[in-house]
């Protein structure tokens, strides 16, 4: 078989797959990337940091975090009682769905979860400290689509 006919077959296969790919991407767009969000969460939490997908922490972590927002990783992120009463159940309902999470990570930090550490083991300590990145909490520095819930490795661009 010549290279040309092989290429032709690959092209045909790709073309045949197009409708499936198209519908998959349409679905992804329709539902975001499956990461739950609510305007309240975006408004109240994403003012200071990315709206971290609630599924990245177990319910026990969210329970603790929402219970001490006046001391939220060194910052006062307090909410009024009414807002908290709406937000907490939503976080708990959407907790621990992204990864198979059994236990709370140390300090309830997503960035200290075993899966997170494993996924980022190639990133040198110096890289995290770059002014353009600052810390592991700044997902969007490298995951450019993080605000849309896109953490796909293929879309990672590490800034200088």
């Amino acid at each position, binding site marked *: 078989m010549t290279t040309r006919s092989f290429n032709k077959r690959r092209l045909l296969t790709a073309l045949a797959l197009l409708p499936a790919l198209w519908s998959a991407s349409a679905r992804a767009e329709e539902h975001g990337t499956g990461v739950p969000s609510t305007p309240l969460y975006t408004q109240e939490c*994403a*003012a*200071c*940091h*990315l709206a971290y997908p609630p599924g990245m922490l177990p319910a026990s972590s969210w329970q603790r975090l929402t219970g001490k927002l*006046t001391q939220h*990783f*060194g*910052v*006062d*992120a*307090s*909410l*009024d009682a009414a807002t908290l009463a709406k937000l907490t159940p939503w976080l708990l309902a959407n907790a621990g769905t992204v990864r198979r999470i059994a236990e709370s990570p140390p300090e309830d930090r997503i960035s200290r979860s075993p899966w997170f550490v494993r996924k980022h083991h190639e990133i040198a300590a110096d890289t995290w400290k770059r002014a353009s*990145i*600052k*810390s592991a*909490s*700044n997902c*969007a*520095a490298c995951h450019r689509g993080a605000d849309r819930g896109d953490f796909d490795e293929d879309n990672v661009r590490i800034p200088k």
Partner: protein
Amino acid sequence: MNLVIKALTTAAALAGLACASSAHAETPADMLARYGTAAKAAADPARGQQFFTSTHGREWSCSSCHGALPVKEGKHAATGKVIQPMAPAFNGERFTDSTKTEKWFRRNCNDVVGRECTAGEKADLIAWLLTLRA
């Protein structure tokens, strides 16, 4: 007669509704006036700038996240998240919702000063931000 009373009641109810829905719609000038009244002192823009750019015995100043001149985007000192300009001339949403304004004063003053800000400090700050023009 009954009709007149009914019409008046309806009008009053509608007026009440209108008031309720605009309870949080304010202008920065409204807020400045209210804080100024509460402080029983005239607001001082220069003092507001001094307050904004200085540290108050802790790690961060307001400028740490908002920039020394908050007419452009700032960056959260810990997370790097972009923060929209604070000066009303550069961001029409600022100081138009008293609930939101109070929430952020409460949180950020606690982080920067270690206590809630006084009405006078808030008035000084808004007075200074209002001097920043495009």
